[in-house]
């Protein structure tokens, strides 16, 4: 018997970033009548809107001016000239970027769909920057061998998000703005709905649906220095894991080379795409040592590691030596004002540096989560290494691991991933609903666990004083940064794991100060912290097991990639004794794209 106050929809989408909104919109477009989207933020506040640099697709609008080298100026490709780019090239770059851990069937789908999805955005009204003859403008991005980042100044994600949100409104998607998902109702590999809190009233309700889709975004908030929004606490990932869904490849977390010093706020990769330099305390362009060919435009994992090495070896800048300089002065005022206005603003406001004539201090910052809820190329969530589906549960975007990014994502590929697979998930859901999916009966009161959790947070702890969730979150971020950051080894990872366990234990005594029902962000902060603790444990365990270095996972005690033993995805299942790991093969076209050494 389902609770009588349950809200019911054909489809419930959790998350209103690009992935969630695309799914909702395309499901409606494909004929589903009744789609509800819940988001803990107003949809337009989703983190997709923070993306700056661009979205990848081999449109062939722009090429480097002949004979000016890999960093020379760009020009539009004349109408009858040879194309320089292709989805095959995009595919190869993505596979190489992924350090061969990406599933190549999914990557193929993504890079082929890329072209269509960017035109779809354009046709829906997205205001892209333009070439002189009116085509979508493109810029270079790290790890891509041609300029294929389609952009709108440096607020690409913002315009994409607004565009797709408008379309969802047009199609009549029902939004539950400021609703917080707490639990997923899954029984015997069948998904029946979610439990969520209406933040404004504090009410906790069961939401039933024939299909549920997760597009809850990333989990960069587990680190001290991060480019991620405060909302990126990996709730979706933790909720799924609690509901018995495994998590895949959680050890792969991307650190972006240019986070603003101390703040972690992103200085777009476009800074380097447009020609910025990285300098150490001696004023050297140190990338010469690490990627003589691509220099600053090498992929993110490599550049971040190079920076970290400079810092670790004492060549960092600023008082604590934890910074590196980003030099954009040679671009000149005009280009900076036209292409990087937002970046300039950020640097001015947060570190007081005008990039037109000053060196901007930066440092690597936790940025993107390659791992997440395992799903196939239709967003269908799987329950194990054999690919058994969880009926009625879908995921896409940063919270999912369809594994197009493998061990390391290329810049501009994630807006693409969220859009392409969000749309595909929406279409798959529509087919599922129209194929006769039904609401599943629900036994008992699924909101009970969430109610108990919240009641406990609001009660007075027996005996001793309660713990502050904020202090626990801070301690977690410290240990994750120090021990599960850019460079890892067995000792550090074990320390991290021990710290996490201790913090989980302390969380039992965590209490909130705000005991009211209405808009209680204190309670939400505590729940988010609990979520951080849940998936951080999975990250530490997965990383500890993977005794190799691949992509963003760099083990100083195992500095080499080990294809023999580790060309496989990690799956972590929840058990009473902590995460249990199993492994899943990588889909590789051994003819066309066999693993190679990854050099830039």
């Amino acid at each position, binding site marked *: 018997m389902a609770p009588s106050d349950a809200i019911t929809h054909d489809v419930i989408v959790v998350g209103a970033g690009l992935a969630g909104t695309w799914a909702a919109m395309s499901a409606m477009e494909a004929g589903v009548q009744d789609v509800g989207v819940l988001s803990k933020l107003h949809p*337009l506040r989703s*983190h997709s809107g923070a993306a700056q640099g661009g979205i990848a697709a081999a449109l062939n609008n722009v090429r480097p001016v002949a004979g000016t080298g890999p960093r020379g100026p760009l020009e539009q490709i004349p109408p009858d000239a040879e194309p320089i780019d292709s989805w095959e090239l995009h595919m190869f770059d993505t596979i190489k970027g992924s350090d061969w851990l990406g599933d190549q069937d999914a990557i193929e789908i993504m890079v082929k769909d890329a072209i269509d999805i960017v035109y779809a955005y354009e046709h829906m009204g997205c205001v892209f920057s333009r070439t002189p003859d009116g085509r979508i403008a493109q810029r270079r991005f790290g790890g891509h061998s041609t300029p294929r980042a389609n952009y709108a100044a440096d607020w690409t994600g913002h315009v994409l998000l607004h565009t797709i949100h408008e379309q969802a409104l047009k199609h009549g998607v029902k939004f539950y703005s400021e609703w917080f998902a707490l639990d997923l109702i899954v029984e015997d590999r069948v998904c029946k709905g979610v439990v969520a809190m209406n933040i404004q009233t504090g009410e906790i309700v069961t939401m039933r649906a024939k299909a549920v889709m997760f597009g809850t975004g990333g989990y960069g908030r587990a680190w001290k220095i991060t480019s991620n929004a405060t909302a990126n606490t990996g709730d979706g990932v933790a909720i799924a894991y609690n509901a018995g869904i495994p998590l895949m490849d959680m050890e792969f977390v991307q650190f972006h080379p240019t986070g603003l010093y101390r703040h972690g706020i992103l200085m777009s990769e476009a800074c380097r795409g447009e020609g910025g330099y990285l300098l150490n305390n001696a004023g050297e362009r140190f990338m010469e040592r690490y990627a003589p060919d691509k220099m600053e435009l090498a992929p993110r994992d490599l550049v971040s590691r190079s920076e970290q090495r400079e810092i670790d070896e004492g060549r960092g800048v600023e008082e604590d030596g934890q910074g590196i300089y980003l030099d954009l002065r040679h671009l000149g005022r005009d280009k900076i004002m036209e292409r990087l206005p937002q970046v300039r603003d950020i640097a001015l406001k947060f570190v007081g540096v005008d990039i037109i004539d000053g060196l901007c201090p930066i440092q690597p910052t936790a940025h993107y989560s390659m791992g997440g809820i395992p799903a196939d190329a239709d967003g269908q969530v799987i329950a194990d290494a054999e690919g058994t589906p969880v009926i009625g549960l879908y995921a896409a975007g940063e919270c999912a691991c369809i594994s197009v990014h493998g061990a390391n994502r290329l810049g501009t590929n994630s807006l693409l991933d969220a859009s392409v697979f969000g749309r595909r998930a929406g279409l798959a859901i529509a087919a599922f609903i129209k194929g006769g999916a039904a609401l599943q009966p629900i036994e008992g009161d699924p909101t009970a666990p969430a109610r108990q959790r919240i009641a406990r947070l609001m009660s007075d702890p027996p005996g001793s004083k309660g713990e502050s969730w904020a202090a626990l979150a801070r301690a977690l971020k410290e240990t994750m940064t120090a021990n599960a950051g850019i460079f890892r080894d067995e000792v550090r990872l074990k320390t991290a794991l021990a710290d996490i366990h201790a913090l989980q234990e302390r969380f039992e005594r965590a209490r909130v100060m705000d005991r009211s029902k209405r808009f209680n*962000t204190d309670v939400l902060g505590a729940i988010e912290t609990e979520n951080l603790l849940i998936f951080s444990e999975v990250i530490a365990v997965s990383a500890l097991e993977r005794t190799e270095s691949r992509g963003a996972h760099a083990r100083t005690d195992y500095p080499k990639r080990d294809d023999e033993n580790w060309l496989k995805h990690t799956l972590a299942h929840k058990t009473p004794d902590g995460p249990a790991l199993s492994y899943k093969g990588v889909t590789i076209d051994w003819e066309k794209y066999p693993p190679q050494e990854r050099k830039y």
Partner: protein
Amino acid sequence: MATNGSVPTVTIRIQRFNPDVDKKPYLQEFQVKAPPGKTILDALHEIKEEQDGSVTFRRSCRHAICGSCAMNVNGKHMLVCDAPLREHLDRKGVLTLRPLAYLPIIKDLVVDRSSFWEQYQRVKPWLIPPENIPEKEFRMSPAEVAALRDAEHCIMCGACYSSCQVIALTKQYIGPHALLKAFLRVLDPRDSAPAARLADLDRGDGVYRCHTIFNCIDACPKGLNPTEAIETLRKLVIKRQAFEAARAERQRRLDQPIEVVGEAPALSGGE
């Protein structure tokens, strides 16, 4: 600003109000350290995490792009996430934080923006594309894109809306943000129904309710100019038939290259 060693301590007064228990809003004082580089949002976080967990505000991106954190600081609307704490103190060295004005308060610094979003939806913010969709992109000149810059850049933070005295008087007024959005669609060469959109703005609560107060410009944290957009719309409303005809003409060539006038600037530079 009391100085303690080298790092000064400042007083932050926060307007508190929980409609479930409080009769009316009141101010509560907190003390925080103010080292350089600290933002007002950092201070709010510190207060919430260390002093009073019930202080309630919205935030997410922390770099002025999501629009969550707009509020009133010493009388001015701004995004607190990119506002350096020390730069906004009043003469007495105090910072007074209040929620956005003229909107119902949900709790403390969190306001109910429903009327704001309703008006946003009312202008049908989505593009109404032409019938013939090209295989590739519609062609737009860089100048056409530049004209949309302000409207496209709006993050829907509500600062303009909640600074406009007309909104204080009536929530029926469509508001600067929605007019800016309407401007985006009307001016977009790809939109094929500008006349219908303009007709919808041609009403007492549309473009004509604006009394050119300019607060929307003063308040906008992104430095945008809704007033100018409104003035443009007012003119177009009158000329809408001619404008639509010109649009139809433009749309016949939407799939063709823009003739390059003068020298085309290089797209992206190198060394």
